[in-house]
């Protein structure tokens, strides 16, 4: 049978909550399990109700026949009540309280318009982003996790394929948006508040440093001086620096030119963090189960070259060019002659059209380059 304390007649044999009424309450028929699930009895054992405690003790004194069941129930409830959560660090609570306090005062006290539930709106926006951009998981990441500004106060910039767009953000930071990309941010930024943007696609950021000069370690800096790019599954936090972020379906990369970048990646309830130094590329491979977030040194200048529309090579080894083609153009490159990797290139190549780029490379390396979809062969 499912459920407590039902007599043969099928009616509950006691009212839902029991202010003590020994005449009405047939406690004399109680089993250990009935005691265990009785809220008045629980309140007595858990110490929530001193009055109940007195009455229960008096009751059991009058009904020695029930002493064994009574004691067994008390012991089990005491055992369960002995559980407690580990104490929370005071610093955490203080920081969170301060954050709330700041938010309560940042939002104007008027603003009576009712707001949509975050959950619903998030789904709608996510759906729209996926449909419009066909960006896969990257599209879902467009939705701000902690929206503070009202929906009408968001600005977004987007580019078509092959288009490049330069923007200046409210704090004076500069952004170059590559083709097929969307950047979303709150229209008004308040000084002294966290700066946040949401990116799908690729962009090069030149972020203004707003922290005091002595503050250079991004991990230790308060949110109020950080600039964060939310790129799908990756959060990229900086103080003031130059870096490239790529967030395309199935791959997310960050390439750091100067300064320091802190990456955070949340997956299945765990947060991974990674600190980048200048000249490093971090890559997120969502398919890799063990360590999806990895980093390696690259020729960072090459990765920002698209912002000017051409790649400048100065004794650049072919291996670096191949890495660039794979990382930013999403190509898979096979070299028939591995020795080619060591060969060096000098000169300027247009970077906008990948076929023009490959043709130029073929000419200067004096080899044959063929492309089928994303597969490229250097012969």
């Amino acid at each position, binding site marked *: 049978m*499912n*459920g407590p*304390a039902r007599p043969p007649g099928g009616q509950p044999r006691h009212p*839902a*909550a029991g202010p003590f009424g020994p005449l009405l309450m047939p406690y004399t028929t109680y089993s250990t*399990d009935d005691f*265990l*699930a009785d*809220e008045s009895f*629980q309140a007595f054992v*858990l110490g*929530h109700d001193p009055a109940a405690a007195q009455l229960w003790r008096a009751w059991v004194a009058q009904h020695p026949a029930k002493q*064994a069941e009574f*004691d*067994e129930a*008390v*012991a*089990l409830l*005491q*055992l*369960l*009540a*002995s*559980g*407690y959560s*580990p104490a*929370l660090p005071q610093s*955490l*609570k203080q920081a*969170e*309280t301060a*954050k*709330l*306090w700041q*938010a*309560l*005062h940042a*939002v104007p006290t008027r*603003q*009576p318009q*009712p*707001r949509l539930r*975050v959950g619903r709106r*998030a789904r709608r926006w996510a759906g729209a982003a996926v449909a419009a951009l066909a960006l896969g*998981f990257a599209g*879902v*990441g467009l*939705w701000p*996790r*902690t929206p*503070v500004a009202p929906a009408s106060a968001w600005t977004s910039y987007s580019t078509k394929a092959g288009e490049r767009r330069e923007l200046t953000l409210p704090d004076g930071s500069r952004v170059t948006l590559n083709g097929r990309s969307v950047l979303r941010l709150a229209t008004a930024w308040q000084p002294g508040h966290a700066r946040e943007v949401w990116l799908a696609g690729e962009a090069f950021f030149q972020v203004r440093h707003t922290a005091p000069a002595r503050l250079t370690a991004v991990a230790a800096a308060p949110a109020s001086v950080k600039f964060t790019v939310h790129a*799908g*599954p990756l959060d990229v936090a900086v103080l003031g620096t130059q870096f490239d972020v790529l967030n395309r379906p199935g791959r997310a990369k960050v390439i750091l030119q100067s300064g320091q970048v802190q990456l955070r990646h*949340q*997956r*299945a*309830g*765990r*947060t991974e963090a990674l600190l980048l130094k200048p000249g490093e590329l971090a890559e997120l491979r*969502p398919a890799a189960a063990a360590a999806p977030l990895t980093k390696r040194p690259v020729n960072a200048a090459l990765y920002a070259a698209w912002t000017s529309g051409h790649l400048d090579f100065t004794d650049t080894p072919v291996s670096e060019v191949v890495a660039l083609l794979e990382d930013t153009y999403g190509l898979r490159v096979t070299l028939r002659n591995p020795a080619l990797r060591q060969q060096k290139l000098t000169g300027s190549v247009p970077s906008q059209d990948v076929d023009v780029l490959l043709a130029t490379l073929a000419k200067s390396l004096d080899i044959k380059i063929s492309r089928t979809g994303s597969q490229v062969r250097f012969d």
Partner: protein
Amino acid sequence: MPPITDEYSAQLWEAFRGGEARALAALFEAYYEALYHYGLKLTGDEELVKDCIQNLFQKLWRRREGLRAVQVVKAYLFKALRRHLGDETKLLRHRYLLPAYSDSFEVTYSHEEFLIAQQGDAEQRARLLAALNRLSKRQREALYLKFFDGFAYERIAEVMGLNTQSVRNLIFNALQVLRKVLAVVVLLLSGLAA
């Protein structure tokens, strides 16, 4: 900090609806730990829980003029956090193309929560933990709300979106299982207590 009464919370809630930021901050301080531990129980993700609690209170503030009076503020906050975490978890799962989210959270109990030094040895503790973690997800969550947060059945029902009788049944059955598994321990303890 001593727990605050339901009556006092309800008064703070009314003051907050009337535009008192301090009243909302007081509720935040009073229930932060309980909300944090409950959220952590449900998701195991500290950052997500912190974000969701912060987000929840900021949202309450912005929407205060559309809110109604509530009887038990703590239960209202627990329910709101639970829903919020559910939405966020769904989004995360979607993002990583994980299988669709199942409707209930996975509550598990850990050793640190039952360091009942004076009441039993490690073996008894292990037995209790094993028994707890073998219960159904809903039973584990209902027991947590009962014994860690002291909610009445009616409030557990509110938080978990069930009816009161279902909660009563969940807990009745869970305690019955625990009693059987722990019969030896309990007899020993009641012998000591007598």
